[in-house]
Structures are given as structure tokens and as C-alpha cells.
């Protein structure tokens, strides 16, 4: 039986058929036909953000906790430009996102019409792929394909720009396409995994280097199994935290710019680096020429363009990480590597991660540890970007894949609050904690209203030093202590802002027993802002100075 539907109705129906149950966005003139059709859907719930960038990050929060493509909507012109940062962020962290934007009617494209911008052109370099739809008919092909592209291989954002007259164009439909899903990855070449296994078996000082691809592939358990079978000390990138529990005996935590000193020193000594789903980012490697100078490299990544990009691999394997690990595991021999594991332990004892003042809940590390003590591993942790982000990466006991949502590649201030809202909407049974700073939170402060409206179970820990901490730190260390534009002279009253937005707020500075106050605030259902002042002179240590080799760390 055929039916006559508009492009807008088709869009909504195709989203329903994709299994989409929640979308987020912000309406405007050029996307009103889709909003009108969305309002008639009995299947899809719409979460209204308060800024399109907020919508983009709410969708990212949903995608990051589920691993499935999430959808955000915006109108043309400023609606689309406001989405760009969230899309670029998704590109750099390989997050599956489908962004749908309204566009001016086809006949007006190119005339500088009201709220017209070249959304297609703007999003070419920040999407995995993008579409400008030119007929209602095309939607039947484009929408499933957008989901397929977003989810297949290395995930990423896809944008669909739909002119208003395509949304209102009615056509007869007798047959619906299958929903688009991830295509199976090409099979791993067994000879390569066999060579890799032989190399691992014969190595004296191998290290495992896990990246975000391990999380995306759902391969954390297999990666830990490999580490255990062959006794491989393991480092993780910022994006991979949680892949191996941080208190696992083989875990050396995060590597690179703010990793522990022993971790970076161990990398200097390794003779084999097994990089899995990692891309040798400059924050991880430091000066590339001096990164793992004595090591052969096995590099496993689903994206062939990552192999040999920064470091030439001795064995490069283009493969889904889970599939490669499945083939690698039986070929890797049980090995206790007593000498090497002992050596790592010696380095760890000599140059441990130092978390000074971790028992004092009024210090930055103490606050993070106290929050962790109030929660179990089911909690989701999001961060904004800055000193607080690195301290949480260093000190929070992350133990579960998809427990940790942070803007790694793009490093977007303003990520934390909307991503936390998205995470809480996608998994309402969990407690979501967002660590943020006084700089970052202001970049998407309007989403506190969304948090109130949705009554999400999000606890925002605002670590307030009245400064842009990382800028302050770099100016202090590398710019002759010339502090400029990094200290806020006027500070808003964050407690009043939160209350004014309709969410609860407490000030730990005023609490006589901060641990008890924190526990009470975290256990209470619903959104809450928890304000805590911290010391602006504290640094993120240890630190690899920009451009230096990882062994040349300063501080702690």
C-alpha cells in the first residue's frame, strides 16, 4: 500500500525506522516542516536544547554512552553555524552523529537569502561525509546511508542539509528502504596477526598502547585479556581511559603530556609498542622523533590512513580492533615476563603518579577522590576542558569503557554540561557527574535550563579558581609569568545562576563537613550544581612542555 508523505514526514519516519527514539535540537524557520512532522510522532521524543551547540553535545553524550549514532537538528544559517563546533568535536573523537539542518528553499540557495549559509561547504572538512538533499525522493537513500556512514568503520559525524521546499514536497511512497547500520569491517589478514603474535612472543619489553578505537570497537575486555595473557604493561590515551581498570596491576594509566613520569619513562625503554586503536596524537607522543625510540611498532587500526601517519609501523594491520584481537589472542603465548614487569614496578616506585593532598576534600585531587568515593563504577563521568579535565583523568578511578566522556581531539570548552545531559537522557538509571571549571561552564551555561527542564540526574562539580587554569599555568611556566587575560576580574555567583536556571545548588566552601554534604548532594535525584573553590596557583603536573620529549617532564 502506498501513501503520500512530505519530505518532512519522510524524514521523521526514516528516523523512526532507524530506531531513533530521542532527538535533540533547536527549531527555526527553515526546519519548521520537520519540526511540525516531529511533533506528530508518537515514537520520537525531542529534547529542546537552549543553543544549537548544546544540542550537538547532548547528541554526542547520547552517542558516546551508547556507541550508536545520535541525532541533532538545527535550522539554517546561525542554527547550522552554531552546530559546527560540536560536529568538528565528533569528527576528531570519532563519534557517530547524524546532524540534520534546514536550508533555504532550493530556488533561493546562492542568493544570500535570509538565514542562508553554505552549510554543505562549511561542513566538508569537519564531517565524515555530508549531503545536500535536492528532492524528497533522495531522502529515502540519503538518510539510511547517513546512518551507515556514521556507524561503519571509524565512526564519525554525517550532516544532512535539507532545503525547506524539499521538506514540504509530497511524494507517493510504496516501499521503504532498510535502516542503515554499520557495515561489517573487512576481515583481518591472518598472516599479519600471526606475524604480530610472533613479534609479541619474542619481545623482551613490550608495551600495550590503547586508544579510543578500543572503546569504539567494544574490545576492552579482549584488550585486557591480551595484556594479561602476555603480561603486557598497558598505557591508555585520554580517549581510552576505562578500557582497562586504572587499578589493574598492568595498568600504567594515561601516557603523554600529563601522564605519570614512570609511564613515560617505561615507554622510553620498551622494545615493542603494540598500538591498538590509537593515532599517536601529539599530546600522547610528545616530540615524535623521541617517542619509544627503541621500539618496533605494531599498529592496529580500522582506518588505513592512520597507519604510518606519524610513526612508521613495523607491522601495520588495517582491521577492526575486536576482530584483530580475536585472531591475535590464540597465537599469543602465555608469558609472565617477570623481569620486565619487575622493571615497571621499580620505575613506578621511583617515579609514581603523585596526587598531593588527596585526603583533603577542599583540594583539587581530594575533591575528585571524594566524589569518586560517593559513587560506584556504574556512574558516568564527563568533563569540560582545562586543568580540571587533566586532574580528573589523572585521579578518578575509571574502570569501565564508556564510563568516561571527554573532548579529547578538539578540546572543546563547553562540552561537559550538555554531554552529561545527553548521557543522562540516554541512560537515565545512571548517575552522571560532570567535572567542570569556571571558564568552561560559562561556554554552555544556558544548558542548565535544559537540565532543569529534563530533570536529568546530573551532578555538576564546578571547580572554581576564577582563572583559565591551563592558560594561567602556561603563562606562568613558559611566558615569564606574564598573566594576561587568564584571570577573571568579575565572577558570577554560580549558586544563584544555577538556582535561577531551576536546579539545586550547594556551595562546598560553606559546608562544615564537605564529604557529607557532597554525599548528600550526589545521592539526591535530579540535577545539582556543586560549587567548590580551588587554588589558582595549582598546576597540572607532571607536564611535558610543548614540543619536548615525553622523558623531559617538569613538576612532581
Amino acid at each position: 500500500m502506498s501513501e503520500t508523505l512530505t519530505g518532512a514526514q519522510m524524514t521523521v519516519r526514516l528516523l523512526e525506522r532507524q530506531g531513533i527514539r530521542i532527538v535533540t535540537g533547536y527549531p527555526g524557520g527553515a526546519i519548521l516542516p520537520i519540526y511540525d512532522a516531529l511533533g506528530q510522532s508518537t515514537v520520537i521524543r525531542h529534547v529542546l536544547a537552549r543553543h544549537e551547540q548544546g544540542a550537538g553535545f547532548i547528541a554526542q553524550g547520547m552517542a558516546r554512552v551508547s556507541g550508536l549514532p545520535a541525532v541533532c537538528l538545527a535550522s539554517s544559517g546561525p542554527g547550522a553555524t552554531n552546530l559546527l563546533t560540536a560536529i568538528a568535536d565528533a569528527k576528531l573523537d570519532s563519534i557517530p552523529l547524524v546532524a540534520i539542518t534546514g536550508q533555504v528553499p532550493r530556488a533561493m540557495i546562492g542568493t544570500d537569502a535570509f538565514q542562508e549559509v553554505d552549510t554543505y561547504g562549511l561542513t566538508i572538512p569537519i564531517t565524515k561525509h555530508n549531503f545536500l538533499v535536492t528532492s524528497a525522493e533522495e531522502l529515502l537513500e540519503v538518510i539510511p546511508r547517513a546512518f551507515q556512514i556514521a556507524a561503519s568503520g571509524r565512526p564519525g559525524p554525517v550532516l544532512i542539509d535539507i532545503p525547506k521546499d524539499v521538506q514540504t514536497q509530497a511524494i507517493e511512497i510504496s516501499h521503504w528502504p532498510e535502516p542503515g547500520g554499520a557495515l561489517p569491517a573487512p576481515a583481518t589478514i591472518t598472516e599479519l596477526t600471526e606475524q604480530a603474535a610472533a613479534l609479541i612472543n619474542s619481545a623482551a619489553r613490550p608495551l600495550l598502547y590503547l586508544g579510543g578505537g578500543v572503546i569504539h570497537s567494544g574490545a576492552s575486555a579482549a584488550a585486557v585479556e591480551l595484556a594479561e595473557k602476555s603480561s603486557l604493561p598497558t598505557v591508555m590515551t585520554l580517549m581510552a581511559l576505562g578500557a582497562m581498570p586504572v587499578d589493574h596491576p598492568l595498568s600504567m594509566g594515561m601516557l603523554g603530556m600529563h601522564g605519570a613520569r614512570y609511564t613515560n619513562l617505561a615507554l622510553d625503554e620498551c622494545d615493542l609498542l603494540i598500538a591498538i586503536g590509537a593515532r599517536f596524537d601529539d599530546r600522547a607522543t610528545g616530540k615524535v622523533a623521541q617517542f619509544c625510540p627503541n621500539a618496533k611498532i605494531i599498529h592496529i587500526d580500522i582506518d588505513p590512513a592512520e597507519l604510518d601517519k606519524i610513526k612508521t609501523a613495523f607491522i601495520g594491520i588495517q582491521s577492526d580492533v575486536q576482530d584483530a584481537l580475536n585472531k591475535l589472542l590464540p597465537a599469543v603465548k602465555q608469558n609472565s615476563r617477570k623481569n620486565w614487569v619487575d622493571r615497571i614496578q621499580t620505575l613506578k616506585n621511583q617515579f609514581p603518579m603523585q596526587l598531593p593532598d588527596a585526603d583533603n576534600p577542599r583540594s583539587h585531587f581530594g575533591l575528585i577522590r571524594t566524589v569518586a568515593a560517593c559513587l560506584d563504577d556504574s556512574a558516568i563521568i564527563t568533563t569540560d576542558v582545562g586543568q580540571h579535565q587533566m586532574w580528573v583523568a589523572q585521579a578518578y578511578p575509571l574502570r569501565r569503557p564508556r564510563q568516561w566522556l571527554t573532548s579529547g581531539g578538539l578540546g572543546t570548552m563547553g562540552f561537559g554540561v550538555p554531554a552529561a545531559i545527553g548521557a543522562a537522557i540516554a541512560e537515565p538509571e545512571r548517575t552522571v557527574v560532570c567535572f567542570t571549571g569556571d571558564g568552561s561552564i560559562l561556554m554552555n551555561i544556558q544548558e542548565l535550563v535544559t537540565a532543569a527542564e529534563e530533570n536529568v540526574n546530573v551532578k555538576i562539580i564546578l571547580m572554581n579558581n576564577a582563572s583559565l587554569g591551563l592558560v594561567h599555568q602556561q603563562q606562568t611556566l613558559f611566558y615569564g609569568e606574564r598573566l594576561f587575560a587568564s584571570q577573571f576580574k568579575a565572577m558570577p555567583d554560580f549558586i544563584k545562576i544555577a538556582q535561577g536556571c531551576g536546579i539545586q545548588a550547594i556551595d562546598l566552601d560553606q559546608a562544615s563537613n564537605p564529604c557529607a554534604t557532597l554525599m548528600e548532594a550526589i545521592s539526591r535525584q535530579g540535577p545539582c550544581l556543586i560549587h567548590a573553590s580551588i587554588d589558582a596557583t595549582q598546576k597540572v603536573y607532571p607536564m611535558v612542555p610543548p614540543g619536548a620529549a615525553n622523558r623531559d617532564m617538569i613538576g612532581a
Partner: protein
Amino acid sequence: MNAINRQEEQAIARSIIEIDVNNHPGVMSHVVGLFSRRTYNVEGILCLPVGQSGLSRIWLLVNEDQRLPQMIKQVEKLEDVITIRRHNADHTVFRDLGHFFQSS
């Protein structure tokens, strides 16, 4: 302004790249965007449809550069790119076009 960078000035050789793509609007932007973001000049472009196949073939003339292998991998990842091949500068495709490009 995107000046031609030193690496390119010092290039002694040129490469010719042949790319089969889906023939629809925007594909050229996707391909050349990978060059422009690196301020990597494209010296020559030729593009025509391939028969009635729905495909087009893009020929690019570029200066030899160590970044080229990585860029070719990135071009290969584009959804609308079917195949990409690299040729030496002695390829004939641009050779007989000289008379269209004389200053008047």
C-alpha cells in the same frame, strides 16, 4: 594568503594523480579541500565525465611532497572516491594542453 610553501618550491619533481569519483556536485570540493587545508597548491586540474557511467575522472598535477602518500590515503577514504592512482610526471594527460594556457 595561502603562499606556496617552501617544501613545494624545493620540489624537484611533479606527480600526476588520477581519481575516479561519483559525478555529482561537491565531490571536487571534498578532494581539493584536502590540499587547500595544507596550503598545498594544485598546479593543474582536469575533470570530465567517464562515458555514461555516472563517474567522473579527476586528474591533478601537483608538486612532489612527502605529505602526498598520507593525502592519497585520505582522498581514498572519501565516500565519493572510487579509486585513486598515482603517476609520474611523464604521464601525457596534461602534455598537449599547453596552447590553451599561453598568456595573451
